[in-house]
């Protein structure tokens, strides 16, 4: 009973907040609705018994990706009049996309009501008692090891690419040398002088 209630609660909030994501006028509100959608999707995954994926969704998407979104959107200088003027210009493309999506939904519903697709036995049936994390780990590090490592390599390449693209050598700044700053002692920087009267100090 409580599972069904929770499912409908989470599902309804996901759908509603997804709708609000595209309906909200203010982009910051859009991102916040998106975060709510992520969060409730995580709730759905917990109900489906995939608590590991649910936690990862919250940590990675809500905790990191959405923060970056929010950062970027907050920095935008939004001109609402210009936004509204753009609506008519892109109306044709928008309608085309909407029609395509609606057609896909109709096809999906039709395919679903036609009965399940037999994909043969499940690739790796796993005992119910094995925790989620162990089950995922066992598959990732045996059957899908090469795919997993290739995915890691792709991410590494993307990271290096981003660094190479944005890195620039600047000659007009004097970077700090932290270890030199820490190693500097007062006797390297100051001298105690005791000049006689009328003589002054030679620097």
């Amino acid at each position, binding site marked *: *009973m*409580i599972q069904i209630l929770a499912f409908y609660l989470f599902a309804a909030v996901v759908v509603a907040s997804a709708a609000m994501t595209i309906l909200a006028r203010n982009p*910051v509100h859009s991102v*916040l609705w998106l*975060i709510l959608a992520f969060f409730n999707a*995580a709730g759905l995954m917990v109900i489906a018994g995939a*608590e*590991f994926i649910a*936690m*990862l969704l*919250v*940590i990675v998407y*809500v*905790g*990191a990706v959405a*923060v970056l979104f*929010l*950062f970027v959107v*907050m920095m935008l200088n939004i001109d609402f009049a210009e936004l509204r003027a753009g609506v008519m210009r892109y109306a044709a493309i928008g309608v085309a996309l909407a029609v395509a999506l609606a057609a896909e939904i109709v096809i999906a519903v039709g395919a679903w009501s036609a009965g399940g697709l037999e994909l043969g036995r499940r690739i790796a049936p796993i005992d119910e008692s094995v*925790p*989620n*994390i162990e089950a995922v780990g066992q598959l990732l590090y045996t059957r899908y090891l090469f795919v997993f490592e290739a995915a890691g390599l792709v991410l590494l390449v993307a990271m290096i690419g981003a660094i190479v693209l944005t890195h620039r050598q600047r000659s007009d700044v004097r970077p*700090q040398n*932290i270890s030199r700053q820490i190693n500097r002692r007062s006797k390297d920087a100051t001298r105690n002088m005791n000049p006689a009267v009328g003589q002054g100090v030679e620097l």
Partner: protein
Amino acid sequence: MTAFFQNTIGLPYGWAWFVATIVGILVIALPLMLAVAMIIYADRKIWAAMALRRGPNVVGPLGLLQSFADGLKVFLQETIIPSSANKGLFLLAPIITFTVALIVWAVIPFQAGVVLSNINVGLLYILAASSLGVYGIILAGWSSNSKYPFYSAIRAAAQMVSYEVSIGFVLISVILWAGTFNLSGIVEAQQGHVLGFLNGFGFNPLLFPLAVVFLISALAETARAPFDLTEAESELVAGYQTEYSSMAFALYWLGEYANVILMCTLNAVLFWGGYLPPVDWAPLYMVPGILWLFAKILFFFFIFSWVKATVPRYRYDQLMRLGWKIFLPLSLIFVFLVSGWLMFQRVGLPA
């Protein structure tokens, strides 16, 4: 507790579970609020003692009621909402901070078997909840529609996200050694961990540096001194809380200190044996585990206070350098070392 409501009072299972959970939440949350009030008092007293002052000593015996007087004061003040603030988000932000600071306590084991929700992804749950904490701050900064809160919010968000990375790697080493994400399991794994009689991963030479990294990252994660750049008074007025008054301000205050206590608890649970006594010696188990846990929490809180009273504030670039250029590589190297050592011990054993 579910069994109690089911058998003694005679509720059906669903209702018994529901009532038991609500009672469990209250049993944790209400004493926590009291603990926050007392820990603020302790913080001010320790801080005062280190500065050779007396600290709060007027309200109640020894000033013990000072926090309650402060609470009453903010409660009676008017909530001011800036006219150009984004009203809904402005009020939502402190609620998020406060809620997130409370929900994490659901998975903390207070004694063997005494935990509200004994889930097998406990540590991930803590990471997930603490990554939500950023939103309370970022929203406050943005919705205030004011310069200083916004600067502070951006600083805070960057700081919390940066230090969560190294905290994540530290936690991975602990998980590798304990073999479970469940916090009770992690505590149990520490029994007799070093030489068969020291309870705690922190006594392990491979994990001790990580315990230090975690302690310092915890300071940064909760934006305590010396990493309190988010509310650096000399630069940003009061940081992201500048525009807040009354209960909204109090919620930030409560949430912040609840987070500090939480980080002290995590230090105790992950590295120093949680509710186990420090030494695996039978007479020490006569003392209830919850007292050991409290003693460890208070010890770490004293360290937090001590640091706050004595260490000067970091510059922002130094903070970022410490997080990304020192802690991140260090914790990565230790993940490598720890997993290498664990694999080395398994050489020749059947899989």
